[in-house]
């Protein structure tokens, strides 16, 4: 049993491979998306893609204008004309949700792009350098981690009377990069001492090449994970801020709808068609993003997946992973595995 575990574990380990020479463009493209090639990630990407499509095609999909007031149809429950009912002004909830997707997707991705760029630059540089420069970049990261983000965002956002989406995205991005930078710094520090980096340095490769060509490909999974994490945080941040009413956005997003629903007492009068869809949409996009991250996690650390599979396989053979007594297995099962 002991040897059995050992060989399997050795198979788990090589997750970070040095880039292969002479990779064709297609092969390189394929290998840089390898972390998404599992069922969890693909499901997550599909859900996310659905919301992106809705955001792009909002004009075509929405049956009404999100602000079209219809005083004849106020607070209608779902019907054939209004699939998700209407608000207190007779606005169509479905159209508001569809148009609301735009703000959420745009801010989520913009903020995450900004945050990821900062995180990669600060994290990789801090991980590659040594001495006081590395320490001070790390201290800066920790300061941003420790300072409570949401109060700061509320205060900064209230500086603007009617902030455009880009500004909101920038504020969310500027306060959300620290976690990614911390993770990337740790990984870069461990990469720096690997053989292939040492070899590149000994060959006299310039710094930008070592970082760009040797290190970044090996950091891609972590960068993708921190990007996905920041999108989640930015979407939650945006909807929360809109709900609080700090951002009086004229373009609809899901948080704004919930703000109106809450202010008009929809939660106390059981107007579920008004407050359920936006909340479920946020949850759905959150689930999609965490599915993608689960997939990336299992790609980076295959034990997360294989541990469960191994335990299930052992149970099928009547063994318990946590059994302290090493069971002597019948020879047949050992041959089956081999």
């Amino acid at each position, binding site marked *: 049993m002991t040897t059995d575990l050992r060989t399997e574990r050795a198979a788990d380990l090589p997750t970070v491979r040095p880039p292969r020479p002479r990779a064709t463009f297609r092969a390189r493209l394929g290998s840089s998306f390898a972390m998404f090639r599992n069922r969890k990630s693909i499901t997550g990407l599909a859900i996310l893609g659905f919301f992106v499509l809705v955001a792009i095609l909002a004009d075509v999909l929405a049956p009404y204008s999100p602000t079209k007031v219809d005083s004849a149809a106020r607070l209608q429950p779902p019907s054939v004309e209004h699939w998700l009912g209407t608000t207190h002004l007779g606005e169509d909830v479905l159209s508001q949700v569809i148009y609301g997707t735009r703000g959420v997707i745009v801010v989520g991705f913009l903020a995450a792009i900004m945050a990821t760029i900062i995180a990669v630059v600060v994290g990789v540089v801090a991980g590659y350098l040594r001495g006081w420069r590395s320490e001070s970049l790390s201290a800066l990261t920790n300061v941003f981690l420790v300072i409570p983000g949401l109060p700061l965002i509320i205060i900064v956002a209230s500086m603007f009377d009617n902030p455009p989406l880009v500004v909101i995205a920038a504020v969310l991005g500027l306060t959300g990069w620290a976690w990614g930078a911390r993770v990337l710094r740790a990984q870069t520090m461990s990469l720096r001492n690997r053989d292939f980096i040492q070899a590149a340095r000994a060959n006299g490769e310039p710094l930008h090449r070592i970082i760009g060509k040797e290190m970044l490909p090996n950091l891609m999974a972590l960068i993708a994970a921190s990007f996905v994490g920041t999108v989640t945080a930015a979407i939650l941040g945006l909807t929360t801020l809109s709900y609080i009413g700090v951002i009086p956005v004229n373009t609809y997003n899901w948080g704004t709808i919930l703000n109106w629903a809450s202010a008009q007492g929809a939660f106390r009068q059981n107007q579920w068609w008004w407050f359920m869809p936006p909340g479920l949409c*946020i949850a759905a996009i959150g689930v999609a993003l965490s599915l993608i991250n689960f997939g990336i996690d299992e790609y980076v650390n295959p034990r997360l997946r294989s541990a469960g599979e191994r335990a299930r396989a052992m149970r099928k053979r009547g063994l318990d992973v946590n059994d302290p007594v090493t069971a002597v297995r019948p020879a047949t099962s050992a041959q089956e595995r081999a």
Partner: protein
Amino acid sequence: MTAVQPQMPTQDALEVGTTATTAVKGRSRIPWRFLAGRAAFYLFTLWAAITINFFLPRMMKGDAVSQYLSRNRNVSPEAADALRSLLGLDTDKALLHQYVDYWGLLLRGDLGVSLLHGLRPVTEVISQALPWTVGLVGFATLVSFAIGTIGGGIVGWRRGSRLDGLIPVTTFLATIPYFWLGLLAIAVFSVNLGWFPIGKAYGVGMRPEWTAEFIGQVIHHGTLPAVTIVIASLGGWMLGMRNMMLTVLDEDYVMVAQAKGLPNKRVLWRYAARNAVLPQIQSFALSIGFIVGGTIVMEMVFSYPGVGKLLLDATNAKDYALMQGVFLVITLSVLVANILADIAYAFLDPRTRQTEA
């Protein structure tokens, strides 16, 4: 006492320890460099927070006094000027001078007066709100951390069993926006079922005092907010602990412990979980700022009289002194919580003390 009691060694094995213990015991080590490094970091963060705090209101459009004037019409221009100098908003002084003044006031514990609360000192306003936030959020967060970590440990230990299904469920609950969860909870349990009161920390007409009735009211009002916080934050702790457990359970020392024939319980809690919990504590320290931010939303949803609600009200009314004070107190409490987590970490992981010292 029975006759067959085994002969125990006179000294406890844990007390005697291994050869490494005796080697370390010789020198009593206080990790000065480690402590100094942490202290420098916290001082730097404190300085950064206070400086941000100083600049924030000065970057904003529209000042508190004009807001105040628009709400109270019968204030003379002289009174307005007096208010400005009272609030340190007179702009004839140089920025550096203002900054030095600000530090001076801060060190004397003077955070100014709150326009929103009838010119009462900011410290007084905050100290009334702080116990509510610290009590409720602190309690709920610790409960969530404990349940999540212990639960994650068990799920990791029983890997491959049906318990694995818990992880997606708790993760789903963690991706739901908190304010929506809170509003739903109010709609279901307060409005429709009537089990819990809607918002506020205690009933109307009650006076805060140490009586059984009042404490009962506080618990009754606090249940829903606390439970929603636990539900929303459980997923992260559980997932983190489970992932660490899966990694740690593959380590050689776990296998050695099992091979020695130690009972499963001891291997799980003393060997695997004790090592897996270390990154948990680090991420606990780092997520305190995030948790504190979350309380603002909680207090708004449940109209709970804590510091988060103060901050929101102050921001809306452009009451800068109160806003600055609240931000400062929030940052300070995050730093204190971080220091506590650091100490706990150093206790649990001797390597932090030894390698850095």
